[in-house]
């Protein structure tokens, strides 16, 4: 876990940009994104389709490299790192939750959750207990030996959240995690994500179209045409409460 005293920046970007060359044209998917997210924050990103939300998430997740600008994670410049170094950061510091779950269909829930541990430093013998604990934390331990194809969407997304958490990351990035779920299940998943943030202090960035979801977070970033057009902190909740909850835990 990030040894984050409140207010310590986990993420800092300065003038971050991502352009795609499309034939002769250039697509400015992300333009001049300057932003700071502190350890323990729960941030929602909203905006119309094609406004650059996923582009930012990919950059924050070290899946992609910025065309311009600076990205510091834990105070370390990571935007220019090579593939292996970025893979290592993804493995140790970041967990992903995808809209389409991205579970291995014919592999049990438990083994799906173990997957990030294959590529990490944890000894083989400690992998299984860790994965079991992660499944228990999302309330789905009883489904550990089932394969995702026999599970409901909500269950699958819980398995995916367990996979994101199993490596004890500092940052969880969820790009439209409820986009494939019905509204009741969406509510459950969102409640779970918020609770996880409150209980463990893991920093969380969630892309969503749902205003209700956004309302449940500390801070809302609004995107339009590749730019951050609004950054609305939910002031009374941020900071003190997060730290207080963590102290209880």
């Amino acid at each position: 876990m990030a040894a984050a005293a409140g207010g310590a920046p986990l993420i800092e970007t300065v003038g971050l940009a991502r352009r795609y060359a499309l034939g002769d044209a250039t697509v400015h998917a992300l333009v001049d994104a300057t932003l700071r997210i502190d350890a323990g924050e729960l941030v929602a990103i909203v905006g119309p389709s094609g406004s650059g939300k996923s582009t930012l998430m990919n950059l924050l997740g070290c899946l992609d490299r910025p065309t311009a600008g600076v990205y510091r994670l834990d105070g370390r410049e990571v935007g220019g790192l090579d593939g292996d170094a970025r893979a290592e950061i993804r493995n140790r510091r970041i967990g992903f939750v995808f809209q389409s779950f991205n579970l291995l269909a014919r592999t049990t829930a438990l083994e799906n959750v173990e997957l990030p541990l294959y590529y990490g430093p944890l000894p083989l013998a400690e992998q299984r207990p860790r994965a079991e604990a992660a499944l228990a934390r999302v309330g789905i331990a009883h489904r550990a030996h089932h394969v995702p194809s026999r599970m409901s969407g909500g269950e699958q997304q819980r398995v995916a959240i367990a996979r994101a958490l199993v490596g004890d990351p500092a940052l969880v990035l969820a790009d439209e995690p409820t986009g494939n779920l019905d509204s009741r299940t969406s509510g459950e998943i969102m409640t779970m994500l918020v609770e996880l943030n409150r209980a463990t202090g893991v920093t969380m960035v969630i892309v969503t179209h749902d205003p209700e979801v956004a309302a449940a977070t500390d801070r809302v970033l609004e995107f339009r045409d590749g730019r951050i057009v609004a950054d609305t902190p939910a002031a009374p909740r941020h900071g003190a409460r997060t730290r207080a909850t963590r102290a209880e835990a």
Partner: protein
Amino acid sequence: MSAGPGGAKLLVMTARTAARALRRNRLRSGLTMLGMIIGVASVIAMVSVGAGADRFVQQQLASFGTNIVMVIPGAVTSGGARSGWGGASTLTVADADALARVPELAAVTYSRRQVLQVIYGSANWSTVVQGVTDEFERVRDWQVASGGFFGERHEKSGAKVAVLGQTVARHLFGPGQDPVGAIVRIKNVPFKVIGVLAAKGQSSWGQDQDDVVMIPFSTAERRVMGAGILGTVEMIYASARTTADLPVAADAIATVLRQQHHIGHGQEDDFTVRTLEDMTGASAAASEVMGNLLLAIASISLLVGGIGIMNILLVSVTERTREIGLRMAVGAKARHILLQFLTEAAVLSMTGGLVGVATGLAATHLIGRLAQWPTALEPASLAASFLFSGVVGIFFGYYPAYKASRLDPIEALRWE
């Protein structure tokens, strides 16, 4: 891999993943392995046939008497046919005596042979009667099973004694009957059986070497094989002191005989010096052809098998693009993905290799049984062809694995 125990752990996980991926597509994996199986099986059959032929030749050399050199009358033409055969022999007892003085030679003997009836009581058997000197036993390294061989005094005195081969003894005498001491008749001449030779089995040209009766050369010449000029021999056998001496010994024999026969420079020899290796060469050549054929099959099969593995891995990489993207997202480095697909290639090809080894063993057994081809299994070749199957798999698996490892995680995750 991250330093230390991470490597071993990853290898375990990777092997497990590979085995699972291949089990999921049993039929596809099986068909892909077919080339590997045929290739490895051919390699093993090839080596077994080759080794069998080698061992057969060695056995022949050993059974005929080690370090032996034979001299036969007449020259061998370039086509391999012999001239001067059928006429009076050009080799004489005097030639053999001259050869006995060659220092490279340990022993020299000579023989004449004729197919004759051998009679014992009411039983008779047509066999090769061979007149040889007492040195024969030493030259051909052929022991007696019972009784003894004749000695110099029998040769000198032209004694009417005989040593029977196993086949002859079996046909003339009943079971439990000891031939030693019995009197047999050859061309109405009574011979006292003084020994029975140990069994030798078949020669490399399929002759029963035990179907023979040995009598002293002098007795044969005077009493049994009347026709022909006195003092001529049909064949001279000499043994070199060591196997290494064989070529030198063969040269020395030729030199002495050319002197004996007054053959000048540039004139053709009227005799042929042969070592047993020359004679077994023909059967070795036949199995070499068989071996080369199998080598061709093996090479083509391994090539086809390798391409099959490459093809199936390319399909697999495409099918599993999303999985690759996900693995990358959760921390797999390019080399982890590379290793994973290389492992799949190796598991695929080595499983094929293992089945190929089993098939090769069965094929070798069948070749030995049905074609009566001599075969010998070489454990080293089993291990080597198994490992080679892995090498082929990794070689052909490299390109698909490399392709997978170069995928962009974002695009791979978006793959439909």
